[in-house]
């Protein structure tokens, strides 16, 4: 039940090899790995961009719209895929953890690091777009890493909680994956929070990804930093991680035996 720091320090090479294995697996299986990573958000960008132009819909976005959605989508994808990977970690690593002892928290944390590579690769076109539109980061650039850290913690916490829930409700995974798609539309991915009427703002900020997405864009595009929303995201992430760790450490052995 307890977490032994020495054990995890000793397992650091094991951890890096597991990360390497996951990365290796993704570009081993997919030939157009790089193209695919960038194509997904780009297709969304095209669809929503055309929709916005033809319908003249208001999105409340002051930045170039392409830049706005693309940056939001890549971070959302990271969150979505990582939390799914975390929640599925036992099934995905079943052949390992039924045969060999691996410290409990190694397999769920591997996707946090391994999926960063996808995020970095899909951020390359973003840099191109920023140069094209002439949008540059301001002083808040140093908040990129802390914001990313929030998203990582959020993915970990959410994934661990879902892993524990699926122990009692075996098909909950599907519901979770679907709600992540839905959640994209209530998060500031394709429209700006400015579209939300003021009196709903408090409720809107209960969505833990709002602060992270706003902070991410502010850091990238040199806008004023949304401290309040960002800190509430941080608080949410911390709570999710604590609850997730508690549930996971408590039920992990049952999950392993249920394979």
């Amino acid at each position, binding site marked *: 039940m307890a977490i032994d720091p020495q054990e995890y320090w000793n397992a650091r090479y094991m951890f890096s090899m597991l990360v390497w*294995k996951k990365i*290796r697996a993704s570009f081993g299986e997919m030939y157009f790995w790089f193209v695919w990573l960038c194509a997904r958000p780009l297709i969304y960008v095209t669809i929503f961009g055309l929709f916005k132009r033809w319908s003249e819909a208001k999105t409340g976005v002051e930045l170039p719209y392409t830049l706005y959605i693309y940056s939001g989508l890549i971070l959302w994808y990271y969150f979505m895929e990582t939390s799914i990977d975390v929640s599925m970690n036992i099934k995905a690593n079943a*052949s390992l953890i039924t045969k060999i002892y691996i410290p409990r928290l190694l397999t769920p944390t591997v996707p946090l690091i391994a999926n960063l590579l996808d995020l970095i690769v899909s951020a390359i076109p973003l840099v191109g777009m920023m140069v094209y539109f002439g949008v540059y980061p301001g002083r808040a650039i140093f908040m990129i890493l802390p914001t990313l850290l929030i998203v990582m913690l959020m993915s970990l916490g959410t994934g661990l909680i879902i892993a524990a829930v699926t122990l009692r*409700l075996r098909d909950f995974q599907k519901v979770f994956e679907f709600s992540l798609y839905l959640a994209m539309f209530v998060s500031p991915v394709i429209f700006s929070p400015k579209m939300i009427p003021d009196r709903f703002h408090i409720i809107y900020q209960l969505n833990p990804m709002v602060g992270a997405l706003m902070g991410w864009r502010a850091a990238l595009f040199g806008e004023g930093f949304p401290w309040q929303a960002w800190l509430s995201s941080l608080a949410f992430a911390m709570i999710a991680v604590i609850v997730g760790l508690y549930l996971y450490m408590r039920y992990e*052995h049952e999950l392993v035996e249920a394979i």
Partner: protein
Amino acid sequence: MTTPVIEVDALSKQYAIGTGGSATLGRVARELAWLPYRKLRGHPIPPIIKKRQTFWPLRDISFSVGQGEVVGIIGSNGAGKSTLLKILSRIISPTLGSATIRGRVSSLIEVGTGFNANMTGRENIFLNASLHGLTRSQITTRLDEIVEFSGVEKFIDTPVKHYSSGMYSRLAFSVAAHLDPDLLFVDEVLAVGDIAFQQKCLNRFSEMVGGSRTVLFVSHNLSAVSNICSKVLWLDQGQVRYFGSTEAGIAEYYKAMIPATVQSLDTRHERIGTGDLRFSSISFYDGNMQRCERLKSGQDVIIGLRYQARPEKLEPIRDLSISVVFKNDKGQRLFGTPSEVLPTTLPTRIHSEGEYLIRIPQLPLLPGIYDLDLGCIINRSTTDKLISAKRLIVTESDFFGTGRLPPNQQGDILVKFSNEWR
């Protein structure tokens, strides 16, 4: 005595079986939909999450192993051997009691854990060894040795999906053979690859066993256990039946498997047939008609089947077939001895009591446990048929004069063969 490196104290494990303990959303929805109806009718409301069915693969196990001891874990299938090994390896946790391990453990429940088909041999060595807890520098120093031992030098930078299954398992075993832990837990993974490589593995394993390393060895292969192990732990239905010296332990084990030299069959009720000729007992003799307790691989053996018959119902005898079918411990039929294939003439009359003898020169079975089916058909009707009438234990012998016998992985049948080079 110094502190034991493995201390197991009152260890018990409970497993949940079936789908109890969890539900699906579909079930939740269905139960909720029925709820008003059931309330209305006063029907009982079933729990949404069914109670888990459980069983105890291990119950109250206690033992301790000192440094350098080599312990063989024996017992029939389902006795809890693998569960015990998994708990000691920390893969699963005990329900009650505790297991304390002192030292770095390598647990070989299988070889090649985590191997990825798209990665090269070299990458897989690093991956697999790191999962066993080795650091980068420890692996680097062993790398040349591992590659050389596996004999796949040429393909070490080829993805393992292009390997033959033999190469794959040789590479996997090589990593396992070079982990160099304080404690080694092995679950019958030794025999991989071709015969030459198997021999190499056994030699390597014997090397690993020597010195201060503590080894737990789970095996069905009693001859390997008696060769390698200094102690045996015999598990029977999740409990320790015996823990102590190998020789006495294996003797005990055999004794439990083989209740008596002459085994009466009269008490067996699960038989079919008319009963006009019934087998009443079965016994074994060596080539000189001396009763023997245990049979050795390749020895001359005579099987004696005592019977009781009602001659008046059987005569005149037009046809007769008495057969003994040998099965291995997996229930596969190995060979049979149906009397009708022999040129011996039919007996004109059958005594009301007698013994039917079957002579088998050079019993063609490797050491192990076998079951015999008996059957007798006279005048086209079955008079007696007994499935698994008798359990037969075959022990090791020096059949080839080299002190070695073929490994069980190549089958259970022993044949006399010779070879030459030309």
